[in-house]
């Protein structure tokens, strides 16, 4: 069993937990993920590591309450335990040698983007952060981002906080204004990452994206997390769990990934409704 040592609400639907998992805490690097199962009847879900406290053996996860499993996870309190927590899985984000980076985060993806920004800053890079949310109420981790950024831009879709518009707006302005980045690291909804790639393309800036497909084992056994990568005119199958989760944004077939991500949409809606009813009764 893995104890929930700390729990904090970051916004109405985004929760932060610190889980006691010393072996994972010792190893986890920015960009890697864990898989957890809340209870014996639960499914295995991947969540990216949002930070570690190696001394106390804690691993920080940040999740949005979007479905049955995250509802059940959110029903747990500090001091409760979850039955499985395994990791760190996937390949850590490569930050070596990057001198000037633009981190683009969207929504709950900022939970993953923040430790990457931190790692880049600590490695001596100049960090520009552009983070975007639907509205003011959903903003998370603003202070943390500011702390690790040389330049910080906040965007909201409705203009209720920071600048109005998508994250691609200031990115495009900067690139058009002659700003040079060694790399853009985009972490957020698939549609956001797709448009970051399209925005960066005319300027020939490398874009790394963090993929989050449906997974089961997460260790390179089931093949559920496969993605199509277009490389040298060929279509290659890659697995996000062992080959990723980071990929060259120019090679990813985003449309296919978006389609696959919705494979169980009806099941998920139904499962969430049932779970909510159960939790209400409880």
């Amino acid at each position, binding site marked *: 069993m893995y104890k929930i040592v700390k729990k904090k609400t970051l916004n109405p639907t985004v929760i932060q937990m610190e889980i006691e998992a010393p*072996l*994972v805490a010792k*190893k986890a690097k920015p960009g890697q993920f864990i898989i957890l*199962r809340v209870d014996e*009847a*639960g*499914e*295995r879900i991947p969540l990216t590591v949002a930070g570690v406290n190696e001394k106390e053996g804690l691993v920080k996860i940040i999740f949005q309450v979007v479905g*049955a*499993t995250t509802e*059940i996870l959110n029903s747990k309190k500090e001091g409760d335990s979850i*039955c*499985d*927590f*395994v*990791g*760190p*899985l996937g390949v850590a984000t490569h930050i070596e040698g990057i001198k000037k980076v633009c981190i683009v985060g969207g929504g709950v993806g900022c939970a993953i983007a923040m430790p990457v920004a931190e790692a880049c800053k600590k490695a001596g890079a100049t960090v520009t952060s552009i983070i975007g949310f639907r509205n003011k109420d959903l903003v998370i981790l603003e202070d943390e981002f500011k702390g690790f950024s040389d330049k910080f831009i906040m965007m909201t879709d409705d203009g209720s906080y920071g600048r109005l518009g998508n994250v691609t707006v200031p990115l495009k302005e900067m690139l058009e204004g002659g700003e040079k980045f060694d790399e853009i690291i985009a972490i957020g909804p698939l549609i956001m990452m797709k448009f970051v790639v399209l925005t960066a393309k005319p300027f020939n800036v490398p874009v790394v994206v963090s993929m989050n497909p449906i997974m*089961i*084992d997460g*260790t*390179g*056994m*089931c*093949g*559920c997390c*496969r993605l*199509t990568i277009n490389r040298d005119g060929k*279509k290659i*199958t890659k*697995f996000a769990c*062992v080959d990723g989760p980071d990929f060259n944004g120019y090679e990813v*077939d985003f449309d*296919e990934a978006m*389609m*696959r991500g*919705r*494979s*169980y*949409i*009806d*099941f*998920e809606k139904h*499962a969430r409704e049932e779970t909510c009813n159960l939790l209400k009764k409880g």
Partner: protein
Amino acid sequence: MAINPKKHEMPTQDAKVRAHNFDEVATGYTEEIALLEADRCLNCKNRPCVEGCPVNINIPEFIVKIKERKFEEAYDEISKSSSLPAVCGRVCPQESQCESKCTLGIKFEPVGIGRLERFVADYHNEHSNEMKKPENTNNHKVAIVGSGPSGLTCAGDLAKKGYNVTIFEALHTAGGVLVYGIPEFRLPKKIVSKEVENLSKLGVEIKTNVVIGKTLTIDELFEMGYEAVFVGSGAGLPNFMGIKGESLKGVYSANEYLTRSNLMKAYKEKMVTPIMKGGKVAVVGGGNVAMDAARTALRLGAEKVYIIYRRSMEELPARREEVEHAMEEGIDFKILTNPIEIIGYENKEDKRDEKNGEVIGIKCIKMELGEPDEKGRRKPMPIDNSEFILDVNTVIISIGTAPNPLIKDTTKGLEVNSHGGIIVNEDGLTSRDRVYAGGDAVTGAATVISAMGAGKTAARAIDEYLKTI
């Protein structure tokens, strides 16, 4: 007394009934049938059956004990060589191993050795809970990577010799392919958990949720004081065909489909893991895993299940018994057929239509067998203009796996072959000192018993080595 020329039939659930439940297909010999079948054994001097067994069980000896109604002693006899008799009695391909060598088999049907093994193991599990922890421990620490058949066997053999054994398992449940791969109706999970429990009683410690190569590396295991490591990490990532449409919604690898149903129990009510149920299903491939996937689909409520296999029935690699069971249950075998495209729904007017990307069919081409290749297998060749479309909404690809890269990538000096399988010598020793390996991680997808044989070989070699220290 005249010898009964035929093996005593295995009692099974009726095909029509079992096609809709996950209970075990074969219900097992009764004591009465077991005694009759044991009587068929000639107890011949040259014991060819023992040679046919990858772990060399003393087959005539345990059958004699059955004849004498000393079932517990029969179990002890099997246990000398096998750590997982209840599993092997169910999933071993006995027809191509022990039973293929049986002297009786020259004139008649061979003795039903597998069925007798299963009877003895089930008898023991029902009547005895004893599993003695060895009295003398030798304080040597051995780490086992993976709790599938090779790892469990290696752990069991070493624990019986007094070693301090720890198994590291990546998933949340021990058992490896016995748990995530082989379905309940062929190998009930309570049997696997019983075997795992027996190992715990022997003093083996099992740590789940530890991925070697990620959570810990092999070098770190040595730093932690383990003196030898056995890698039984199993087969890895599923292969795909590389045809159009393999990423559509409703296309699974057999590993994913079976993991959802077996490990995550998606077939049960109240489990959160989803799986696509019902409709028409095509399973591509002809191995045991393909049979398992097809029969699982049927039990999950599919109205029609096809097996698509590019060669003929003769070449189909699955066990005969599994193929027969599948046919009895109503699986439709499309042999000499090869898929060339999976077709998805596409609403060009509305890109947001949730049906977009759902499988609606699989386009296949008829095949014929050409000249034998260098291995003597006749190569399947497509027949021109023979394309046709099967109307399906789920496709399960079951054409083998490629080795998992996690351990290779994080263990310096561990050599692998061109297929990515770990290279070992006849003792199971890898290119790294004190690192042994066996099972699918070495051979690529093979059988449970061959993995057990490899676990056994490595246990013997580890013992030989550590004894000298």
